[in-house]
């Protein structure tokens, strides 16, 4: 006869093991599957941009200015997404622009992740005065208007890809620090940490080989959030003219360059905007999906 024991065992079966089955488990999550698929497409587009782009993204052709995309009345397959005010192919610029956005997002997430993780680790593990100081730093950072400080600094330093990356990296570490600090405070008193201490492991060793591995999941989730955040901020900086400089094909810059024409040809700003939205959407869905999959308690 069936006992509750068999029932309970079915409920608590570990997630399927083996890479294939685990992947199937992940892709059973609709948001994760959608985000991962979309992001993969964008990454392929960015990596293979030289192969996929029908034209040179920098090649100007004054005779072919402001050609509408193919689905509009005067659109042609020669320029599937139309051309900009200098006659450059929009699709090619979009593909190369994906590289800029992805690179900035990734680089800013890595830099801010390093800063935030180190600060969070120190604050969480040592507590006391160190914690008070770092918490104070976090509060201060949160009180700073990111957009304004980034704008002012980028403007003075002169906008460029590297400046934007460094700036965003130095400004977006707060969430990493908050999350890592809270997580470390929880783990710090766990028995395996006490065991490592009793064995005489050095503090750096405990931090990096006992504590850090437990934070990987949370770090990945925060990294996706900050990557999306950095991509949005870069687009805003470039839109205002202090970020990536022309003629580089940044999506934010494309919107800025299209702005004077938006009243008669709204597609010039709609296309790069939708591209931005899809990229950020893909990253956010992926992050939410990872959170649901690795932290089942944190759902909703």
């Amino acid at each position: 006869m069936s006992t509750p024991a068999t029932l309970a065992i079915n409920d608590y079966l570990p997630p399927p093991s083996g890479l294939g089955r685990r992947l199937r488990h992940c892709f059973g999550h609709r948001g994760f599957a959608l985000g991962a698929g979309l992001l993969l497409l964008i990454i392929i587009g960015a990596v293979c941009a030289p192969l996929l782009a029908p034209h040179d993204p920098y090649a100007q052709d004054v005779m072919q200015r402001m050609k509408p995309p193919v689905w509009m009345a005067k659109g042609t397959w020669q320029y599937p997404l139309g051309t900009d005010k200098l006659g450059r192919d929009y699709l090619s610029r979009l593909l190369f622009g994906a590289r800029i956005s992805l690179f900035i997002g990734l680089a800013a997430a890595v830099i801010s992740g390093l800063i935030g993780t180190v600060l969070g680790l120190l604050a969480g593990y040592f507590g006391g005065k160190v914690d008070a100081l770092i918490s104070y730093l976090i509060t201060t950072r949160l009180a700073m208007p990111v957009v304004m400080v980034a704008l002012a600094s980028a403007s003075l330093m002169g906008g460029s890809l590297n400046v934007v990356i460094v700036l965003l990296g130095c400004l977006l570490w707060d969430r990493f620090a908050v999350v890592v600090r809270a997580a470390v405070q929880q783990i710090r008193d766990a028995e395996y940490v006490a065991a490592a201490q009793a064995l005489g492991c050095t503090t750096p060793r405990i931090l990096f080989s006992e504590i850090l591995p437990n934070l990987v999941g949370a770090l990945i989730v925060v990294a996706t959030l900050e990557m999306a955040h950095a991509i949005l901020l870069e687009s805003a900086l470039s839109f205002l003219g202090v970020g990536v400089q022309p003629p580089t094909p940044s999506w934010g810059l494309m919107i800025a360059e299209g702005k004077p024409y938006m009243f008669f040809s709204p597609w010039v700003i709609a296309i790069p905007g939708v591209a931005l939205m899809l990229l950020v959407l893909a990253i956010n869905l992926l992050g939410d999906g990872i959170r649901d999959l690795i932290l089942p308690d944190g759902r909703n």
Partner: protein
Amino acid sequence: MLGFLLRRLGIALCVAVTVSLISFSLLHLSGDLATAIGGPEASSEQIEQIRVQYGLDKPLATQYVNWLGDVLRLDLGNSFFFQESVYNLIASRLPITLSLGAMALVVALVVAIPLGVLAAVKRDTWIDRLALSIAVLGQAMPSFWFALMLIVLFAVTLHWLPVSGNATWAHFVMPAIALGYYATPAIMRLTRAGMLDVLASDYIRTARAKGLRPGRVLFKHALRNALIPVVAVAAVEFGFMLGGSVVIETVFSLQGIGQLAWDAIARNDFPVVQAVVLLIALIYIVLTLLADLLNAVLDPRIRVR
């Protein structure tokens, strides 16, 4: 309670000073101000003259202490570009930004809270999924692009609203929506999560066992408790909105402090930038303080001990 308040105020002041110090050093380390003010054509003598004129020849520490001393006397200095005192500039622009921020907050709350409540009550139905989709999409849209699309739709295509400026309240509608939508997903998710928690709680079961009507259970007993954390987040979001107003005000040519900051940044008008950053940090700090107080008012567990 008073001790707690004083402590919080003390920390708030320290944070404000630190923010000003950081932004001060950030701006000074970013490039040579004198060269920036003088422009590319200025000769080295002219630049030297500017340096002395604006006190930029003194050591950074001296400059900062001087500046801070002036700030404490509410003397924010004079704008390099506008030929007016920074204090007057900010005083004339601040009301516009504050009303924009307030309207944006109202937009965000009016959309986010009912949507969050509905999503929680109708959990796992299409309404819930729709609300979550709106949240995810909202988080993915760059605000300046959303603002431009609003202009294309409501001003250019439908002619319902003016494109830019700040003459009437109608001029504020699109900026408020563009600024407010960014806070909507966060507040909505928080409301939904809070409602789900509260609806599963024992005291909601008690309220139903008392024979209260479902509406009364929802609005009197559930919402009140679910909204306590939302208040704190709303205050913080209001602070973020003021910071983000620089982008939206620029797009809509609203003459608020965001636009002022942007004009000042573009012209290296250093005293103005410095003052605006400090002001926004101060407002943010005061807001978080207010949020704590409001929490205490709403939550008897904090208020009455």
